[in-house]
């Protein structure tokens, strides 16, 4: 029984469970047709990769890293009022206004408030919920602009 194209594609991507993968490997040793099919799939993969990478962006990745690092350096001091209000809103949704007022003490920094929010949600609703809440807080937020806020 020859493996189907879909199976061979998954096999070449190492996305098949080990037992089935061993069976296919054994079959391939004996079947020149399937070997040829697998070779063709490898070629196609190279073509597809070339196709996917056809649009190489004309930008310098190192400049991007420098911008990210600069943003990171400024992040801690960013007042980020928008981020604060978003974090507060999430605590209000899941805990209530009292908890939000308690958490957002005037001297707490935005990054600390965010960390506290995440800690609360992950403790009481689990990691996945915390991740989703973090996504919700950051959604649509312009972090580059946020970290640029502290610039004189």
């Amino acid at each position: 029984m020859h493996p189907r194209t879909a199976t061979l594609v998954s096999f070449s991507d190492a996305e098949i469970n080990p037992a089935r993968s061993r069976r296919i490997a054994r079959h391939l040793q004996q079947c020149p047709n399937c070997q040829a099919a697998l070779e063709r799939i490898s070629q196609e993969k190279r073509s597809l990769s070339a196709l996917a990478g056809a649009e190489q962006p004309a930008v310098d990745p190192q400049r991007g890293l420098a911008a990210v690092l600069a943003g990171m350096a400024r992040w801690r001091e960013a007042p980020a009022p928008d981020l604060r209000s978003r974090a507060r809103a999430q605590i209000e949704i899941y805990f209530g206004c009292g908890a939000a007022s308690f958490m957002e003490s005037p001297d707490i920094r935005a990054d600390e408030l965010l960390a506290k929010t995440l800690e609360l949600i992950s403790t009481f609703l689990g990691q996945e919920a915390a991740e989703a809440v973090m996504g919700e807080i950051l959604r649509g937020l312009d972090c580059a602009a946020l970290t640029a806020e502290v610039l004189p």
Partner: protein
Amino acid sequence: MATIFAPHSASIVKVRFVVVSATMDRNQLGGPLRAGIEQEIRDLYSTEAAGLLRHAASAAGNGEAAQDAVQEAFLRFFIARTAGQEIRNPRAWLFRVLRNHVLDQMKAGSRHEIGLESVMNSPGPGYDPEAAYGRAEALRATLRTGLTPREVECVELRSAGLRYDEIAGVLKLQSGTVGALLTRAHKKIRAAAGASDRRNGELTLKVATGKRYAS
């Protein structure tokens, strides 16, 4: 007892919480933890930035916008990590956040330079960024081999080294669907290569005009 406590509850609500526990040290972010995250980001940038840039450029159609989107994804990664979020699969996380960010930018409309002016009409009330994303992709994809936008995205993410379950996470699909989409992409490129082989004897990609594939 419930009745005893009920009238008391009003006064309890006013009670202030007495202790703010120091579970999060104020200086924690300035210390070795932060240095560790910074190194993590440098490493990730060196391995993932190229793939992310390609993916963003493919979606946004413009190098500068792609650069901005990738920076944004890395900054978000940094913010999430310093806030204490554990990210088990940083690569898949970055791709997902990048894609959502590009979609968000598209939703924000033509005010923002995202390089889709050629394919996007001015967004009306029924404007759907997924469809715009799809149209931009579809335009390029049709110019290539007749792959659908979903197939192109799968191929791109797979080329960037993502596993099927990671791709499924980014595109919000079942991982079985990812395998099926990739197989279809293989079949289409095979058909295209076969056609061009017959004509030229070498692998050049045929423009599949007038041919639509359901996504």
